[in-house]
């Protein structure tokens, strides 16, 4: 069953090349903005829980602020071969941000 879309905020809440996080169904998700649009991935870095929404964002990746692991925003893969993160879906409608958790993700504790 595909999870539903939830409204999580406005487009203007996330500046270009930055990220902000939100909890949905018990799961903390980082929403990041690039020139291509919005991306959503798990908020916690698999390494030591670093807040990925606070990372430095480039055209298609984000770097964890704690120890510099880097994740591809389209696939969630860690670019150095370490474990990656789950990618979720963001939809923009009338200036508002909507989030759908990836279908295979069970809610995790925040």
């Amino acid at each position, binding site marked *: 069953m595909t999870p539903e879309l939830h409204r999580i905020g406005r487009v203007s809440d996330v500046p270009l090349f*930055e990220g902000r*996080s939100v909890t949905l169904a018990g799961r903390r998700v980082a929403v990041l903005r690039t020139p291509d649009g919005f991306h959503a991935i798990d908020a916690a870095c698999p390494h030591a829980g670093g*807040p990925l*929404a*606070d990372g430095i964002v*480039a055209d298609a990746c984000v770097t964890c602020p704690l120890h510099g692991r880097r994740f591809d925003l389209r696939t969630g893969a860690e670019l150095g071969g370490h474990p990656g993160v789950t990618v979720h879906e963001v939809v923009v409608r009338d200036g508002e941000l909507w989030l759908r958790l990836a279908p295979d993700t069970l809610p995790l504790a925040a």
Partner: protein
Amino acid sequence: MRGRFGAPLSTLGARGLGTPLVASEAMNRVLVIGGGIAGQAVCERLRERDPDVPIALLCKETVPPYDRVALSHLLAGETSRDELQLRPLEWYADHDVDLRLGAAVERLDPDAGLCALADGSALAFERAVLCTGSDPLLPPLPGIDLPGVFAFRDPADCDAIAARARSARHAIVIGGGLLGLEAARGIAGLGCPATVVHLVDRLMERQLDEGAAALLLEAMRELDVAVRLDTQTAALVGEGAVSGLLLADGSVLAANLVVISIGIRPQVALARAAGLAVERAIVVDDRMVTSHPRILAVGECAQHRGVVYGLVAPIHEQAAVAAATLTSGTGAYAGSVQAAKLKVMGVDLVAVGDATGAREVLAADAAARTYRKLVLDADGRAAGAVLLGDTRGHELLLDHVRRGESVADPLDLLRRASEAGAADLPDGAQVCNCNGVCKGAIVEAIRARGLGSTQEVVAVTRAGAGCGSCKPLVRELLAIERGGAGEEPAYLCPCRKRTREDLGALVRERGLESVSELMETCGAGRDCGACKPGLAYLVSQVRENRHREERHARFINDRVHANIQNDGTFSVIPRIRGGVTTPAELRRIADVAERHAVRMVKITGGQRIDLLGLRKEQLPAVWEELGMPSGHAYAKAVRTVKTCVGTDFCRFGLGDAIGVGIELERRMEGLYTPHKVKSAVTGCPHNCAEAYVKDIGLVAVEGGWEIYVGGAAGATVRRGDLLDTVADGEAAIRLALAFLQHYREQGEYLERTYAWVERVGIAAVREVVLDPAGQAELLERYAIAKAAADPDPWLERHDPVHPKQFAELDSEPEPLTPIDIVLAGAGGGR
């Protein structure tokens, strides 16, 4: 049917398997058993020689191969656990190596070409390479199993030792070899006094002669490592956990942490059960083949011509030979010259080959604690060298020993070695002993791949990726290759190969005002984004702070003006100039800390106060209530000016350290710099404010002030260079500001003054900063930049750059309430 390895296989006779296994399995597969440095090296060399042969790497451990050598650095806290991994997981996929973790081989049937794994499965192979390494040797002493007694072999040992060192009152390391000393120093560095207990009468007796061992002993003692020689342990004692060592002479040494480091025990059980010839280790011939033609052995589990090596350089040589044997049958190994380097910061020691011999020449200076000895054999050929305190040219000496070169004038060779630079080394000279990389390979990689920074060279060649001690030489080779007299700095944007100079010129020439414009113009910062903070500094510096500030280019610390911590919370350090505060200010800090239930209030090493563990949403309210400006403790910016009490109070005071310090801090604060800048002003050469080891340090002397620059006492310790001596405090401040501006304009991003001054030389700095005209221009540019700098970014609490600057999508910043209202509202009777 012909094996893919041609000739050698024919000696196997009939394959004699006939089992159904082979039909579906890759029967020409090479199994590498054991994922240590040896197993990894065999896979790499084999894959280089044959792109197709199926390779499976079976690892008993559940983590991918890691760098055991670096465990000493891990214990010393100089690296982290995940930096140890030799190759990222991608590497195995890219190189088609079937990496199996947690796959312990239980039985091996060489004739059948089969092995059984612990999980009950079986694997067929054509050839297998045993790389099972060794276990630590543990003496059968009573009490050896007590809690608190550890070996020093894997990351779990490191964690356990480090954890215990934090609470133990005293630690003992049994064994005064290379590893034991490194363990002891690591433990002492964690704040736990350590004693090395050694059986024989000198340290590292296998690598050192008496003279060097005696000097090493002194050096270790200075690093707070005590040493007891000629001491035999009879038992480990303790109730429930180890509490000490019972010595053979009946006395007891107290210790609640004991590390055993007396040697290794090659892992031969699997080989022995398979019927292979085993002596001290698995016996191999010059092709690295064991007594069974199908099985090879490499690394610490192998014994070649009677020698078992316990170092990585021989492992790399053996792995290359094994790969040659497997692919062409032509491998030939003649043994390795052993070269050991001690990885203890502050003690430079290299021992190559024999420490004593028929003829020895020595250049030693007891006062400077240097010892340089060259050993020749009876035929006058180089056979060994011991270098302590001054290890210059060890690569050249190692090369002579390796090639067994005749040395007509050994003293002259020693002298030449101490002058030998990278250029004088032959191509075959091994630069990186850990990963077995010679000069020729490094130079070729630099040329062929156009490498531009030391970082890149290390990543590509792996020279310098082990213990790291050869990195300076790698850097030197790079500088020579790039034809620059000086060191070629790393790219500010490595993805687009853009240097600071290139990018600065673009900003100037095109009149760019922001990082985005720079990104659009040349692509810097778009790929990985790591250089964006560097670009942000560059743009602000070139445009003298009249740039367009963009927060996406800043690290999170500079978006919220606080330092991010391990759990994603932040710390707040207000400016307390010169470390001088007032009772009222302290009371206010205390109130804020209580009101916000701050997790910890801490006096910092920078003479100020830290409120730790605040959420992003709390920051504006905390700042408002504090009513103090930002201390910039989170930024690459001017940080602290530490002071001592000086002439205000001290009976030795020669200058007004507090007054000058506070004034210096006011004049510098708010400015961003290539890396952080910490200063101190101290009232006399007793140096209570530690001015000799600061980026900028002012020391009051009889009749004036000395200005020191480029000092450090962090990860690097360096005494600052004396820039000049001037008559009064104002002149000292002006000189400090001119120096600061020069550094702001010339330093590479993330290059501290200690590295910058070291790189360009104090003479070059003096030339610019002490020249009256040059100084005046620097001060003018400084004044312009300072006037446009934001003195207190914490004021953004009133005027955030973005509504969500201090909040997430589902949170809001806490409302601001000035502290007096807070206190009045609380009804506190103050």
